[in-house]
């Protein structure tokens, strides 16, 4: 078995709000092998983007708690200070494409230079060489190489998205986090970008964390899927396990609510609203909406049970069947 490139253990993240502390990420653990891709799927407010920002250690000023272990290449980055992180880790080992980043390109600078800039400024690479690297990256993300001389307004949405993906790759990271990279794009462009990401995985053998609200889209890229709800991972397993045989009532209902084009089913939905993370419901955070709720659910929080095939499910239904925590 190959060494994990990323191991996250017991990650907690809370924000200070006027109503009290909001526990956005609670006890999140997962690992990632080289070349592997993990989809973090969940609805708005489930903590998927917060998890991503935590991995980059780019947290807003109102962060009130941030604990756990983030091991990148065997090194716990929680112990590193900001300058060390900048010098060795961020963008070099782990990079991120932010949601809506394509709208944040500088409108008065040619996109090729924007991609090459970190090399010129931080790595003292001569400008020509850096632009060559930008050309290479453009090829990788499926853009014509002469586009390095274009300005953002000369590019369409899909092209700009390719530019920001190229940008994130400029320092050869081992892990790439993509936060809703296609949510602002039309389905046709989305499919083009997804094909490109599949190529990217093959050529670079890069590990990907793909954050999306669209579980069908996650299935287009990811080997493993983590389903988040209320700041916690409710289920984690291979794409086959989670999509074909979801064990957690939330993941089952979520998948049941996705309309499919190629097969027929009765669409389901989950009544109620997501939990308030300042005052989460006691016990399992999904229990007020859960169709299988029983005795312990509103009293204590279920642990992550490990089932056959290494999949993890945070639900008391599996207390008997599972191997325990």
């Amino acid at each position, binding site marked *: 078995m190959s060494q994990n490139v990323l191991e996250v253990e017991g990650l907690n993240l809370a924000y200070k709000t006027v109503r009290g502390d909001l526990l956005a990420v609670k006890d999140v653990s997962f690992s990632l092998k080289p070349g592997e*891709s993990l989809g973090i799927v969940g*609805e*708005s407010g489930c903590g998927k983007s917060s998890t991503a920002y935590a991995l980059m250690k780019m947290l807003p000023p109102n962060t009130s708690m941030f604990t756990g272990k983030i091991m990148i290449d065997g090194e716990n980055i929680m112990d590193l200070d900001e300058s060390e992180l900048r010098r060795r880790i961020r963008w070099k080992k782990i990079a991120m494409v932010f949601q809506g980043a394509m709208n944040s390109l500088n409108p008065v600078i040619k996109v090729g230079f924007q991609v090459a800039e970190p090399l010129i400024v931080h790595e003292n690479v001569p400008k020509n060489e850096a632009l060559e690297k930008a050309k290479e990256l453009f090829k990788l993300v499926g853009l014509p190489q002469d586009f390095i001389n274009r300005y953002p307004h000369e590019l*369409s*949405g*899909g092209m700009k998205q390719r530019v920001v993906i190229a940008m994130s790759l400029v320092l050869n990271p081992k892990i790439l986090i993509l936060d809703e990279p296609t949510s602002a794009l*039309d*389905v*046709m*462009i*989305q*499919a*083009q970008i*997804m*094909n490109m990401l*599949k190529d990217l995985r093959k050529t670079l053998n890069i590990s990907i964390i793909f954050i999306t*609200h*669209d*579980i*069908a*889209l*996650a*299935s*287009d*890229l*990811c*080997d493993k899927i983590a389903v988040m709800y209320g700041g916690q991972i409710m289920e984690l397993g*291979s*794409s*086959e396990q989670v*999509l*074909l045989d979801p064990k957690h009532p939330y993941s089952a*209902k*979520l*998948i049941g*609510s*996705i*309309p*499919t*084009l*190629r*097969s027929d089913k009765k*669409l*389901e*939905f*989950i*009544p109620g*609203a*997501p939990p308030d993370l300042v005052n989460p419901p006691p016990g399992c955070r999904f229990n007020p909406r859960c169709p299988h709720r029983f005795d312990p659910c509103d009293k204590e929080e279920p642990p992550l049970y490990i089932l056959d095939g290494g999949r993890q499910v945070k639900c008391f239904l599996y207390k008997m069947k599972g191997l325990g925590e």
Partner: protein
Amino acid sequence: MEDNVILRLEDVRTYFFLPKGLFKTIVVKAVDGVSLDMKRGESLAIVGESGSGKTTLGRTAIRLIEPTGGRIIFDGKDITHLKDENEMKMFRRNAQIIFQDPFMSLNPYMTIREILEEPLIIHGYKDAEERKEIIEKSLIDVKLQPPEEFLLKYPHMLSGGQRQRVGIARAMVLNPKFIVADEPVSMIDASSRAEILYLFKSLQEKYNLTFMYITHDIATAKYFSDNLAVMYLGKVVEYGPSREVILNPKHPYTSALITAVPDPDPKNRFIYRKVISGEIPSAVNPPPGCRFHTRCPYKFDPCDKSEPTLIQVNPNHKVACHLYNKK
């Protein structure tokens, strides 16, 4: 006109004229010659990418925008250039819209009661008791129960799904015959989307409503619409019963659109989607001939010269593509 047709669009064109410099004008042909019939109680999905003109078509159909050309006949009456205030009011009562964004489309300073009461006041319901009754009934209709619990709340106190229900209730208070729903669920979480769409279905059956469902999501159209029209650059390129169009698409653009949408299937990651390249061209200078020919994998001789018209391929299934002209 047959009695059961509630809305007929005849060659409707909606152009936007944008000034360029001092003397020039750019013409954006957002909707460029759309003809459609909608029967009473029917739901029709208008599917297309951004820039296809689907929203403009919906807004034109209820005269939020006055069309540049063509005719709109609603309930047997030509409303294309209706000016008379009273007649317009009557039309507005019967044709309503639900907007995409449940956060932006509700006034944050008004309570739910005020939001729902406003249309009633405008339309001359003088009796406050009667207004309250109608408001409560419409809240029950959209399953915001019990109504008293919501009447005095402000929009920010509700979840996204609840807010969108208020938007639906607001469209329903005047007891309309026809509703345009413009991407009503695209901002709502996946797990609640079907709930709202089921609600539409039940309201439609209960009140024999006619729905124009504007969406970019062809998969929801399959589940919730009787018929489906696919738009590309201001034109309808394919029209037919939703399931038939999705299971047996005729237009190359429709096929491409369907191929691009993944179902949740772990096998997806091992395949590449056969997508067409490029993006939707600008509606300022649409390509000559068939507007899709610049991206079409089946392009042949006539495509860049003559514009295909909608022709019948199956009962009720029409397509605008030269591939079907000979057959």
